[in-house]
């Protein structure tokens, strides 16, 4: 079954509208919560008047910060230990008390019998503000004497950390050319199809909290509800049923989860909150939001020497739960798949009066890939060399793995030239270059853009992550239980919200235990019947959680073998397990199936001293991260008169190690590339400089690509197994997004290079490109 291209078993239910999302769930006596959000980006709250709102039909209760004090302990978590030289990390209580610091921050909640009644009453809550100076531009915000995003803070600097790797000055001294560029990673919305939704039901008599939440991390949410509400973890059950996407925006506890739980405690009613799309844009974390100033040093022959990167990170008003992680990953992966002599990074985290930034598909790795792939192209351009040749010249060879990058990260396995060569032949590279030259003579501007990325997945080995993750071990767990009649339930700590785990995990179990795929049931998302796990993000579920399942299955096989040996009256070492059947060496006809052994495991007559049952538990802590890689090529043509970009071809050759289900891998690449194209060409969160209001407040104002904008892609793979886990898998959930933006932008820059254009910012909108061409023509 491993490697089989089978349809996702989740799909018939989901595509016919039979999924169960949080909003499909009702509770007796349930009330709806509407959140009154700050209309100001930065202001003192003078007063909150609920007189009119209280009289609104159906209103059950209205609560503000003062009501939640004493019900909610402390603030939202921040992985502070990521921030070695932590400067100023303000504590975030889930609701503003005296000062609002971003547009859309909760200031009050209304509970009403019906959802529309809650919305109507929320409009009638009168909040009187005393405006304070608004900090929007994060580069200005880091300057001495800047206005402050929190009036009681010392300044706006959350952290300022250096990542030294080798003798950077020596590397630059050797250089024949040095190229500088500013690369902007604009803020984008993660935009899952299903916004966040929560139901909290606190039962006072038993001190039990049941929470349904549209989250990627149910166990993680449970821990923080335990801390925040003071309810023992054993008394809390968090259920993430069908979840319509997350893309990293649902991998943390959110204010509304605390508020709904506390409101249920205060009101004695189950409380449901359904995020509207406009709220989703304001109050679900944003992705990216960086400036990278880079300097590249290279030799005349194309040898890459040194890379200096200064990262300014726009955190928003509160450092995201994993906010600093993205800057750290962006720098640690900035060397990409090249043999730099030295790389030096610095990151400054900056507070502004905006929504927090936190992980979005790739989380730091798209930033890294974009900057280093731009860096290589800038060097190639300066040296008048083909960008593919510069890449090939600087890749570590296959026999150089495990390869340690300039910042000390150890890449497990790789065959970078192989993916590039495969992509070259798929796209018809040499022909394309000829065609490009011909078209240029006719005044047509076609470009070819490379992105040869490497990424870090399988987060993560506790030895490496504990000191940067706030002492989290980031192991992943599984329970594999074979029932007496031979069917299998596997319960996992990860959560599937589009990844297809119900299919792929069942494939692993079916393959390893030799049972029919159809009898394997995968449980996830309910802390009530799954073992603790850190959840799904960072392309880790297979490389950590999947491997844990494999290990549990192996334990089951080991026990089953003992039972089989006993039944076959043979020594254990003489028993062979082959495709679900146990037999004595040399007599394959007399075999016991896994189903028969499972039945025997629940009957009398087991080997002496053996307990009944056939199940196993594994908490897997991998020895290293995994390092998927690949080569993407994008072919564009730019209309020089209008600045319009047409993607003519997109080739992706990815290597994610061994593949469990090729169809799901292809789907992940398709979706990932689509989101990368979205950032490259269309998307940008904009706040008004003067007021801090969200200008892209609806999807009328924020462009995400649709079916008309995403090209048909040519996908292929190479397979370089990871040596760090039993399955040889690496992960693929984010690969497409990590690779795509650089491929698209490099292609556009290549197309426009006859105008002397060396760099293009994202989103490469027609207006922006037209202006750049106009400037270049002057």
């Amino acid at each position, binding site marked *: 079954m491993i490697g089989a291209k089978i349809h996702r078993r989740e799909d018939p239910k989901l595509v016919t509208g039979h999924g169960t999302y949080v909003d499909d769930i009702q509770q007796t006596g349930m009330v709806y919560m509407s959140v009154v959000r700050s209309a100001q980006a930065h202001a003192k709250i003078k007063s909150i008047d609920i007189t009119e709102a209280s009289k609104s039909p159906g209103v059950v209760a209205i609560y503000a910060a003062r009501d939640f004090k004493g019900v909610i302990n402390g603030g939202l978590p921040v992985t502070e230990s990521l921030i070695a030289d932590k400067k100023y990390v303000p504590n975030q209580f889930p609701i503003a008390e005296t000062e609002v610091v971003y547009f859309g921050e909760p200031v009050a909640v209304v509970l009403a019998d019906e*959802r*529309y009644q809650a*919305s*109507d009453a929320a*409009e009638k809550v009168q909040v009187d503000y005393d405006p304070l100076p608004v900090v929007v531009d994060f580069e200005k915000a880091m300057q001495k004497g800047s206005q402050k995003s929190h009036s009681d803070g010392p300044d706006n600097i959350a952290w300022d950390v250096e990542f030294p790797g080798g003798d950077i000055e020596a590397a630059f001294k050797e250089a024949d050319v040095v190229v500088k560029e500013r690369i902007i990673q604009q803020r984008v919305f993660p935009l899952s199809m299903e916004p966040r939704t929560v139901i909290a039901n606190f039962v006072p008599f038993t001190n039990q909290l049941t929470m349904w939440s549209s989250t990627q991390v149910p166990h993680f949410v449970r821990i923080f509800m335990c801390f925040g509400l003071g309810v023992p973890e054993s008394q809390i059950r968090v259920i993430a049923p069908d979840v319509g996407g997350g893309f990293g925006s649902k991998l943390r506890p959110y204010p509304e989860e605390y508020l709904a739980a506390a409101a249920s405690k205060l009101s004695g009613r189950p409380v449901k909150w359904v995020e*509207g*799309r*406009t*709220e989703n844009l304001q109050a679900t974390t944003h992705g990216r939001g960086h400036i990278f100033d880079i300097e590249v040093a290279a030799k005349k022959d194309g040898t890459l020497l040194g890379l200096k990167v200064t990262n300014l990170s726009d955190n928003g008003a509160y450092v995201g739960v994993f906010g600093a992680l993205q800057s750290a990953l962006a720098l640690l992966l900035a060397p990409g798949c090249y043999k730099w002599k030295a790389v030096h990074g610095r990151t400054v985290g900056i507070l502004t009066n905006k929504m927090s930034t936190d992980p979005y598909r790739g989380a730091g790795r798209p930033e890294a890939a974009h900057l280093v792939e731009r860096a290589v192209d800038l060097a190639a351009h300066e040296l008048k060399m083909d960008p593919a040749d510069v890449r090939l010249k600087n890749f570590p060879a296959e026999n150089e793995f495990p390869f340690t990058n300039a910042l000390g990260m150890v890449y497990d396995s790789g065959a970078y030239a192989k993916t590039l060569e495969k992509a070259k032949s798929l796209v018809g590279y040499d022909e394309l270059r000829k065609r490009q030259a011909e078209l240029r003579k006719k005044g047509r501007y076609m470009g070819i853009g490379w992105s040869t990325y490497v990424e870090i997945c399988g987060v993560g080995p506790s030895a490496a992550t504990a000191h940067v993750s706030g002492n989290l071990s980031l192991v992943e767990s599984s329970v594999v239980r074979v029932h007496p009649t031979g069917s299998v339930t596997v319960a996992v700590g990860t959560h599937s919200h589009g990844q297809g785990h119900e299919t792929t995990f069942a494939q692993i179990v079916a393959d390893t235990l030799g049972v029919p795929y159809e009898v394997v049931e995968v449980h996830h998302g309910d802390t009530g019947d799954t073992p603790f796990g850190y959840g799904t993000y960072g392309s880790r579920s297979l490389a950590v959680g999947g491997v844990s399942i494999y290990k549990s299955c192996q334990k089951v096989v080991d026990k089953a073998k003992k039972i089989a040996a006993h039944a076959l009256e043979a020594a254990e070492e003489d028993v062979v397990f082959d495709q679900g059947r146990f037999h004595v060496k040399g007599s394959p006809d007399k075999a016991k199936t896994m189903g028969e052994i499972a039945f025997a495991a629940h009957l009398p007559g087991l080997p002496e001293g053996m307990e009944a049952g056939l199940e196993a538990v594994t908490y897997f802590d991998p020895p290293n991260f995994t390092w998927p890689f690949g080569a993407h090529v994008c072919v564009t043509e730019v209309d020089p*008169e*209008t600045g*319009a970009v047409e993607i003519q071809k997109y080739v992706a050759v990815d290597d994610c190690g061994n593949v469990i289900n090729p169809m799901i891998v292809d789907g992940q690449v398709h979706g990932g590339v689509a989101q990368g194209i979205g950032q490259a*060409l*269309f998307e940008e969160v*904009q706040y008004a400089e003067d007021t801090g209001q969200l*200008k*892209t407040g*609806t999807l*009328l*104002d*924020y*462009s995400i*690509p*649709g*079916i*008309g*904008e995403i090209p048909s892609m040519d996908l292929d793979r190479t397979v370089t197994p990871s040596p760090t886990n039993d399955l040889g898998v690496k992960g693929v959930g984010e690969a497409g997004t990590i690779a795509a933006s650089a491929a698209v932008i490099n292609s556009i820059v290549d197309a426009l290079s006859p105008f002397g254009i060396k760099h293009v910012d994202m989103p490469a*909108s*027609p*207006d922006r490109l*037209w*202006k750049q061409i106009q400037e270049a023509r002057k």
Partner: protein
Amino acid sequence: MIPAAFEYARASSVEEASKLLGKYGEDAKVLAGGHSLIPLMRLRLAQPTALVDINGIKELDHITERGGKLHVGALTRHVTIQNSSVVKDKLPILAEVAGEVGDNQVRNMGTMGGVIAHADAAGDYPTLALMLDAEVVTNQRTIRAREFFKDLFTTALGPDEVITEVVFPVANGPHKYIKFRRRLFDWAIVGVAAQKINGDWRIGLTNVSTTPVRATAVEEALKKGAKPEEAAQHASDGLDPSGDLRASPEYKKHLARVLTKRAVQQAES
């Protein structure tokens, strides 16, 4: 994303619709396809006190040609216009434009009358109506397109006035509508319509002002024999478009010129 409270009434005739509009007063709105109105209500940017649903008035859904005029009923859906053999034969540019409105869902619900009455600067039909000297017929009178579009989202319609049909001249000579947009299912950043009628060019521009614009300077230059690329330089004469998140004013003016050139060239080719 939940509309404010409103009354709802379904009209079975134009007279009844007009009466209901009169009853609910000037904050009432006609509901046709609803694909512009409902999103605005969900965002609470529009808070009509009442909706008068005209979807049950079957006689408003028609396409006929008589006496050199194409009559398109107010309730005619985009998809009907797009696929109508009469429209394809008598005013093919209208069928093409209908095929470029929104996506399938929008085209299945959205209507001619709705687009005209909504008077969005980025609407496509108003450009054709203005450029072709169409007439907007209501339950009370006939209004020439050039007198109909007053300002952004503002028309000559009175509070109890209901559009019944839009009457276009027949024109099946060279034509082209270029809708320049960032995404397939999106509004025009700028749109340009070119139609040859009785030997002369008509040029209409979408989304470069608060109302549709007829590029008369281009029309005149073409009449005097200017080449398309020369005449098109006049497309931005007198334009003062507002910038938005999609495009700056300068870029819109530039697009008006480039797209006018292309529209005339492509119409002729």
